[in-house]
């Protein structure tokens, strides 16, 4: 079975400050890991993914994420937040060799204050 936990319902950060959105996962084997963003009344947009190799993954809009196998985490980060980053963020996992569909976390709402 595969599962994802996003422990924070909401993260508040001031514009220009670094941001972190947390994600931990559980899989039987090795994971593919993804981050998506959802703006109001829109579908999900892909941000970045970890497949293999370098633990630091860079994605769209200046976001990056760090894969940590020992802590089973895949936290999303950005060095300097923008007001336009305010949105709902989802972490997702797929167990390699397991079910073909992604399993999503409950989502974290990021609020960036001017």
């Amino acid at each position: 079975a595969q599962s994802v936990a996003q422990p924070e319902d909401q993260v508040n950060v001031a514009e220009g400050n670094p941001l972190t959105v947390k994600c931990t996962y559980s899989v039987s084997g090795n994971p593919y890991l993804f981050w998506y963003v959802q703006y109001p009344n829109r579908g999900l947009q892909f941000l970045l993914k970890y497949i293999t190799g370098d633990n630091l993954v860079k994605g769209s809009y200046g976001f990056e994420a760090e894969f940590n196998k020992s802590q089973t985490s895949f936290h999303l980060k950005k060095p300097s937040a923008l007001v336009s980053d305010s949105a709902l963020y989802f972490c997702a996992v797929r167990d390699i060799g397991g079910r073909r569909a992604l399993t999503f976390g409950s989502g974290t709402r990021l609020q960036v204050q001017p």
Partner: protein
Amino acid sequence: DVKVTQSSRYLVKRTGEKVFLECVQDMDHENMFWYRQDPGLGLRLIYFSYDVKMKEKGDIPEGYSVSREKKERFSLILESASTNQTSMYLCASNKGGETEAFFGQGTRLTVV
């Protein structure tokens, strides 16, 4: 650009009605998925399909069925709509393996 198109953005149906949600993708993807999104619960997988006429149950299939007669089209069917099926429904597709899934804009279904 990959496009996943859902037939309706907003839908209002009555309890007991049979409801069809349609999804079409234009990138020849093998896999297609239906999720429902509810506040605090994230996205939950209802059904997915990895080939024409092939389907697998997700985590919450009760009260739903699906149909995939053509590769590009994946339909979600609510056999007898109930108020607890009021939700946002999201369709997605991907090529499989490590590839990311692409999502439609969602259908907000209200059952009254």
